[in-house]
């Protein structure tokens, strides 16, 4: 028989974490740059959250609590990169955590709008993006597959990313106008 209190704890955890996932993901990605460790850090955060969920006080904001864990994990990762010059300073990492907490809601809205905007981009754009972000191919490989130059693929990616971001901005503006 499963422990009911453990189950309800899990449900609390899941409910909250789903809401705050966008902000944690954006924060970790900002601090770990193009490093492959981004997913490892996210995984470590999730593991710590699972272990410590019993200590979470429900009367306090979950975002602040989970971002505290995220900050510690990113700083821990930062320590492993101490000799590298290609990482942000601990001070900036701390400041990023504050900025992430401040703009968490907006990041979540953006995440939702991204899905809608993605369906609006032309087939070619989705195809290139799929090869790059979904299949994980390099720009050079995509160029070879599509018989286009690396520069052309690079430019196409820049253009479609720009399109998506503009689309998301437009959606956010429309949303603000409709709620005001």
């Amino acid at each position, binding site marked *: 028989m499963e422990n009911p209190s453990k189950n309800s704890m899990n*449900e609390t955890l899941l409910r909250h974490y789903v809401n705050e996932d966008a902000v944690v*993901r954006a924060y970790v*990605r*900002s601090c770990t*740059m*193009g490093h492959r460790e981004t997913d490892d850090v996210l995984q470590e955060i999730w593991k710590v959250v699972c272990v410590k969920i019993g200590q979470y006080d429900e009367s306090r904001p979950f975002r602040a609590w989970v971002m505290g864990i995220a900050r510690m994990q990113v700083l821990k990762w930062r320590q492993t990169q101490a000799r590298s010059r290609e990482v942000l300073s601990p001070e900036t990492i701390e400041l990023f955590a504050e*900025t992430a907490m401040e703009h968490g809601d907006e990041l979540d809205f953006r995440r939702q709008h991204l899905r809608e905007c993605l369906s609006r981009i032309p087939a070619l754009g989705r195809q290139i993006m799929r090869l790059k972000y979904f299949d*994980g191919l390099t720009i050079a490989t995509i160029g070879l597959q599509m018989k286009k130059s690396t520069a052309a693929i690079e430019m196409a990616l820049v253009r479609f990313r720009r399109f998506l971001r503009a689309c998301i901005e437009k959606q956010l503006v429309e949303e603000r106008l409709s709620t005001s």
Partner: protein
Amino acid sequence: MKNFNDTDLANYLEGALPADEIGRLDETLKHDPQLRKNLLVLAGFEAELPIALQEMSPGELQSLSEESPAGRKLTPRVVSAPHPRSSRIMFGRVIRYAGWPALAAAAALIIGIGLFRFSGPLIQRLTSPIMRIALIEGDYVRSGNRIQTPARSRAIVYLKNATEIKMAENTTLEALMPWNNARQTVFLAKGEILNNTAKGNGAFVVRTGAGSVRVTGTRFSVRAESLAGERMKGSKERTVMTVKVLEGQVKVEDVAATASIMVNCGEEAKVVEDSQPGKTIKTLFYDDFEEDEIGKVPQRWQLAPKLWAVRMDGNMDNKVLAMVANKQIRNIASFCLTGNSGWSNYSVQCRAKMLGDEKHLMAAVIAYDRKDKGFYIFSHDASTEEIVLKKYRAGSQKSGGDYVVLSCRPHRASNGQWQILKLGLTNTPEGILLRGKIWQENESEPKEWTIEAHDKENSLSGGECGVMSSMETTYFDDFCVSTTVSGNDDLADSFKERD
């Protein structure tokens, strides 16, 4: 101080900004909150983009791959990991199935596609593009991974939206959607899963090669298998999906989402690949007692006064039909009925929980009740640890009636646990075929009937149905009467060979 634009920030996130530039960016970020926000927004966008692309439906992915000059086709069965370089797994949590001691070592196998870099103690470093690792309780799986349960092994996967997926043996499941999304989607390649989704936690979608099931807050099982017989004919082997709804309602669609049906509690629907979904079992009656008043007799039932009433199931927010214990009149059974005397060829199913003294406990479903003739009973008797199929033959007022045991089998279950009793009756030229099965609520419905009997007396050919209990506290819930749908010949033909 340099003004960093979006291209610089994108280069930084790609790891393409030179080290000295990163130093300058770091200094600027310390003093520029707007730049920090811009970088966060861009990072969020970059982090979400692979997930959003992956969340596109298999149909969309298919159409994209068809556009690809490389000609590589993506099917729902082959979903690449979004981060091929990343390590470990982040879709949901797998735990060992508690009731299966043989699973001490490995509960499931997971197949990741792509070049993963693993560092866990149970995971080997491999260079093959496809690897298998044994999962243990508490491991995490991520979107794009495939979970397999071998023979005599089962697993439970918890998704982040509180959905619980119980995987039967020989089942292959793929996590199509990332765990962080409100609309969780899995692809059932083969085997059977029992899903328990929580209300208010977003939609949950199960896709198979034959179609998909979409729900919000319900309990249902899905089975995907190859249509037997077709391989022999040399044609394309089609998938067939069977959906059984245990609570609530689900929407069943074909692969192209051009045809859909709503399937209610107690009903079963089947979809053969490239065909429209159709119901194979239709509900005649269903009652979960949620509309009834606590302490009163439920509206649609004929009851023995004061013995039966609607109650709450402990602290759970769930109403049940309860037999209230009466210590004075033990060894006597009481029953309550519903339905129509004209009903025949149906199955009765309900959940039952026995809470009283084990020496006297008995819970049963009854069917084909004709007041002047008798009825059939499928009971679980805790005192003798048996399940029994029997017939009650009504007698005269003076002599009373008698019970005839048609079949009997040992069965042990813990008190205080919900279990499901199902009795199926079919009128045949040789008499009435009775078949029963019983299983724990947290298990999938057994494919085979557990107990069977043939009553050749032909004294009962239809009638009302209901529940029955000894004079000990017993709860009943989700009472459902269903019948096989006729007239769907195409679908029936499809299953003829398989069955």
